[in-house]
C-alpha cells in the first residue's frame, strides 16, 4: 500500500482528519499542500510554541515583541533597532554556498519587512570536525556563500561565531542574524486591512524553487521522467535583493506601504495567510497575475514556491501608480496579485477557477500545538581530575590550545566578509562583541551571537543560562548595556523525550538569565530535527544580543593598551574544566551559572565603562584565562605579567571555564574608583601590561607565551585546515 499524500507531506492522521472540521469539506490538492507547509514545524512551531511563551518578552523599550517578522526596540531620539536571528540549516547541508547565501537573504528580508534598513549581519555556524572532508566543504562553501550575499548587498557582516564538533557532522548549523534601523513611529507590520487595498508582489519571478515541503510535494506528484519539473535549489540573487532593499525603503519612507511582508518558508502561502490572519481579513489572490519564471506551473507550485528575493506589500489603490513607478525605476518586477476582502478567507484563482478557499486562520491560528514529551536525562557526573592526566608541559599545552580550530583566530572567515561597508563599524570582528555606530546618531550598538552548547548537553538549564550570560558579557565588555535578544533554538528531534526535556530546560535557563539582566527576547526562530540515525546535535540555543552605548566613542576594546596598566580579574566564577575546550567534549558537570553574580558583574562592567575607567576588557570563555590573556595581548601587540592563585590544579587554573569572569585592564589611578564601584563583585589585581610575551606565574613557575610564536599558532590554523 502506498503512503497517502498527506503523510508524505508530513501531516499526521489526526492533523489530516482535523482539516475538514475547519473548512467544512475535504481539502483540494492545493489546499492540502498549503496545510502541510503551514502546519509544518518550520511554520507553525507546533512542538515549541507553548514552551516559547516562557521567554520574557516585555520591557519599557520594546516596540515590537515576538510575532512579527522581527522584533524592535527603542534606542532613543525617535529611532528603533530591529533584530532577528534565523536558521538555514537544512538548505545549507544540501548546497552550502546557496543555502547559506539564501539564509542571509531571508533574514535581511525579515528586517526589511519592518521597513527597517539592514545595518549589520552576524553568522553563527556549527560544523563537524575539520578533519572531515565533508565538513571542510560545508564550512568553506557556507562562509563563501554568506560573504557573497552580505558583501553584494552592502550590509556589513560584523561578527559571528563558529565551532567544530563531531556532533554536527551530519547536521551542520547555519544561523544568520540581522540588525536594522527604522523610525520608531514608522515600523511596518504585516497585518492586512482595508477592503479593496491591493497586494503587490515585488522582486524576482516565481519558479519551482523549494527545498522543504515543495520538493516532497513534487516527488509525490511527479513521475521520475518529469525531472525538469522538480523543484530546484534556490539560487541566491543578492543584486536583486539590494534593489529590493533600496526600492522598499524608498517606498516605506514615502509611507507607500500599509503593510509589508517577506516571502520565506512556504512562500506566498505563508506570507499572504499571515497577513490575512493578523488583520482578521480575507485575501483574494489571482495566481495568473504572478510573474513566472517557468511555464506550466500548477497552482500548488505557485502557492508554495520558495523563490527568493520577493516581498509582498499592501498598497492603497491611490498609491499604486507611485509604487509601480518606483519599482520600475529600480528595474524590479512588480504586479498586483490580489485584494483585501472582508470574508476572512484566503481565496486563490488560477486560470479562472477557484482553487483555494479557506479561512486564513485555519492555516495559522488553528495550527496544531503539542506538548513535547519530557524525560529528564540523568544528572551529569563531575570530572574526576584524578583520572585526567595533567599536561607536563603547560607552555606547550597553551600554544596547542590556542591553535585548536574552536579557539584559533577566525580571521580566515571574517576577512572574506565586508565588515566595514556603511562606514559605521567601530569595533571590527576579532574581539568580544562588534560595535556599530547607529547611522546618524551619537549612540552605538554592541552586537554578538553566542551559545554554550556543550554545557547545554550536560545540563540544559545551566547551559541555557550560560548561553545568555556569555552573550551579555560580550556586550558588557564593550561597555554597552545589554538591551534585547533574539534566539535561534537548534535542537534534535523534539518528539524524543530526552530532547523535549532539554528544549524545555534550555528555555527555562535562558529565561531565568534574561530576567536576571532584564533583557527581553523580541524575536527568534526554532530549528528542530537536526539529527541523523547516527547522531544528534548538541542542544544549540544561539543567543543573538544587542546592547546600547550612549557614546559611540566610548566603547571598550579587548586589546591590551599601554605598559603599566593593571590587569584585573572581575567576577566570582571558578575555573573548572567540566565542558571546557581543554577537555574538548561534553564531559563533566559544569557549575550552574549564578544569576545574581552574573547580573552584578555585567552591571559593574557597564557602570565603570560609563565613567571611562577601562582600558580593555575581554571575558573569560573558551580556553580559560590563558586564552583570554593571549587574545588580548595579540590584539594589542603587547604582553603582560600576571600571577595566578595556586588553589587548583594548574591546567584548571589556566584553561578552566565557567562564566562570570572578565579580564579587564585599567590605569593604576583608576583602581580606587573601581574598587568603590565594584560592590559585591570580586575584583583581583593579577598583574600588569608590558613586554612581548604573556608571563603567568603559577606555583613558583613561570609559564610564558611568546607573542610572535603565539601569533603564528593562532593565525595559521584555519587557513591550513582548509587549504
Amino acid at each position, binding site marked *: 500500500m502506498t503512503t497517502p499524500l498527506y503523510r508524505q507531506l508530513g501531516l499526521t492522521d489526526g492533523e489530516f482528519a482535523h482539516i475538514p472540521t475547519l473548512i467544512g469539506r475535504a481539502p483540494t490538492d492545493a489546499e492540502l499542500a498549503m496545510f502541510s507547509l503551514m502546519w509544518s514545524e518550520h511554520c507553525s512551531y507546533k512542538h515549541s510554541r507553548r514552551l516559547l511563551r516562557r521567554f520574557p518578552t516585555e520591557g519599557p523599550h520594546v516596540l515590537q515583541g515576538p510575532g512579527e517578522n522581527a522584533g524592535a526596540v527603542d534606542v532613543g531620539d525617535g529611532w528603533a533597532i530591529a533584530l532577528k536571528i534565523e536558521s538555514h540549516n537544512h538548505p545549507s547541508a544540501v548546497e552550502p554556498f546557496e543555502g547559506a547565501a539564501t539564509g542571509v537573504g531571508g533574514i535581511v528580508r525579515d528586517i526589511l519587512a519592518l521597513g527597517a534598513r539592514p545595518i549589520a549581519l552576524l553568522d553563527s555556524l556549527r560544523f563537524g570536525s575539520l578533519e572531515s572532508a565533508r565538513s571542510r566543504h560545508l564550512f568553506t562553501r557556507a562562509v563563501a556563500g554568506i560573504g557573497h550575499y552580505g558583501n553584494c548587498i552592502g550590509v556589513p557582516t560584523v561578527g559571528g561565531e563558529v565551532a567544530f564538533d563531531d556532533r554536527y557532522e551530519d547536521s551542520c548549523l547555519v544561523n544568520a542574524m540581522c540588525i536594522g534601523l527604522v523610525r520608531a513611529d514608522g515600523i511596518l507590520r504585516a497585518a492586512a486591512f482595508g477592503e479593496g487595498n491591493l497586494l503587490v508582489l515585488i522582486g524576482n519571478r516565481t*519558479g519551482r524553487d523549494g527545498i522543504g515541503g515543495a520538493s516532497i510535494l513534487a516527488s509525490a506528484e511527479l513521475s521520475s521522467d518529469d525531472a525538469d519539473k522538480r523543484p530546484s535549489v534556490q*539560487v541566491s*540573487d543578492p*543584486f536583486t535583493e539590494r534593489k529590493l532593499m533600496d526600492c522598499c525603503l524608498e517606498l516605506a519612507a514615502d509611507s507607500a506601504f500599509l503593510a509589508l511582508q517577506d516571502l520565506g518558508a512556504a512562500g506566498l502561502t505563508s506570507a499572504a495567510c499571515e497577513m490575512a490572519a493578523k488583520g482578521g481579513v480575507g485575501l483574494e489572490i489571482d495566481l495568473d497575475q504572478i510573474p513566472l*519564471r*517557468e511555464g506550466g506551473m500548477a497552482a500548488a507550485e505557485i502557492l508554495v514556491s520558495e523563490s527568493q528575493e520577493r516581498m509582498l506589500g499592501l498598497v492603497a489603490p491611490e498609491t499604486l501608480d507611485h509604487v509601480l513607478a518606483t519599482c520600475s525605476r529600480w528595474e524590479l518586477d512588480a504586479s498586483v496579485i490580489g485584494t483585501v476582502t472582508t470574508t476572512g478567507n484566503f481565496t486563490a484563482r488560477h486560470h479562472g477557477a477557484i482553487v483555494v478557499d479557506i479561512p486564513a486562520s485555519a492555516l495559522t491560528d488553528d495550527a496544531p500545538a503539542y506538548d513535547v514529551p519530557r524525560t529528564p536525562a540523568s544528572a551529569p557526573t563531575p570530572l574526576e581530575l584524578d583520572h585526567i592526566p595533567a599536561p607536563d608541559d603547560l607552555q606547550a599545552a597553551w600554544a596547542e590550545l590556542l591553535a585548536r580550530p574552536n579557539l584559533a583566530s577566525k580571521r580566515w572567515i571574517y576577512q572574506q566578509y565586508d565588515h566595514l561597508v556603511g562606514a559605521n563599524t567601530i569595533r571590527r570582528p576579532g574581539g568580544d562583541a562588534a560595535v556599530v555606530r547607529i547611522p546618524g546618531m551619537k549612540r552605538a550598538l554592541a552586537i554578538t551571537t553566542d551559545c554554550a552548547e556543550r554545557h547545554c548537553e550536560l545540563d540544559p538549564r545551566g547551559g541555557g543560562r550560560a548561553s545568555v550570560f556569555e552573550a551579555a558579557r560580550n556586550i558588557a565588555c564593550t561597555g554597552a548595556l545589554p538591551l534585547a535578544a533574539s534566539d535561534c533554538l537548534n535542537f534534535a528531534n523534539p518528539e524524543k523525550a530526552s530532547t523535549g526535556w532539554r528544549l524545555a530546560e534550555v528555555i527555562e535557563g535562558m529565561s531565568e538569565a534574561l530576567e536576571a539582566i532584564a533583557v527581553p527576547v523580541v524575536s527568534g526562530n526554532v530549528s528542530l530535527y537536526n539529527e541523523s540515525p547516527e547522531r544528534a546535535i548538541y542542544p544549540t540555543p544561539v543567543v543573538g544580543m544587542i546592547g546600547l552605548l550612549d557614546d559611540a566613542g566610548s566603547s571598550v576594546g579587548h586589546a591590551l593598551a599601554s605598559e603599566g596598566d593593571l590587569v584585573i580579574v572581575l567576577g566570582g566564577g571558578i575555573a573548572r574544566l567540566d565542558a571546557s575546550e581543554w577537555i574538548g567534549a561534553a564531559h563533566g558537570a559544569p557549575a550552574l551559572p549564578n544569576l545574581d553574580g552574573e547580573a552584578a558583574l555585567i552591571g559593574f562592567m557597564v557602570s565603570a565603562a560609563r565613567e571611562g575607567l577601562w582600558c580593555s576588557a575581554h571575558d573569560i570563555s573558551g580556553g580559560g584565562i590563558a586564552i583570554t590573556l593571549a587574545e588580548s595581548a595579540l590584539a594589542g601587540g603587547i604582553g603582560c605579567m600576571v600571577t595566578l592563585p595556586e588553589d587548583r590544579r594548574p591546567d584548571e587554573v589556566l584553561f578552566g571555564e565557567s562564566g562570570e569572569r572578565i579580564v579587564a585592564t585599567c590605569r593604576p589611578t583608576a583602581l580606587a574608583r573601581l574598587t568603590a564601584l565594584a560592590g559585591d563583585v570580586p575584583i583581583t589585581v593579577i598583574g600588569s601590561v608590558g613586554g612581548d610575551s604573556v608571563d603567568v606565574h603559577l606555583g613558583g613557575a613561570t609559564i610564558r607565551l611568546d607573542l610572535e610564536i603565539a601569533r603564528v599558532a593562532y593565525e595559521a590554523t584555519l587557513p591550513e585546515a582548509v587549504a
Partner: protein
Amino acid sequence: MTRVVVTVMPRQGVLDPQGQAVRGALGRLGFSGIHDVRLGRRIELELDGPDPLGTAREMCERLLANALIEDFTVAIED
C-alpha cells in the same frame, strides 16, 4: 596530451541571475529580439592519460560543476 572542453551551464528551471543581468544590459544598449541569455562557464583542460573524457567527467562530478544547479558536457577539442 588531449584538450578537453568542459561546458557548465545553469540547469533548466534554476534561476540564472547573471543571464538576467546581461540580458537587461544588452536591451539597454539597444539590442532587440533577445529571447534568452544564459551564462555559464567554459573550462579548457589539457590532460595526459588514457581516458581524458572520462577524467574530465569525473572532474566535473567532483569539482567543476555543481550537480544540484548545473549541467555539464565534456568534449574533445580538435
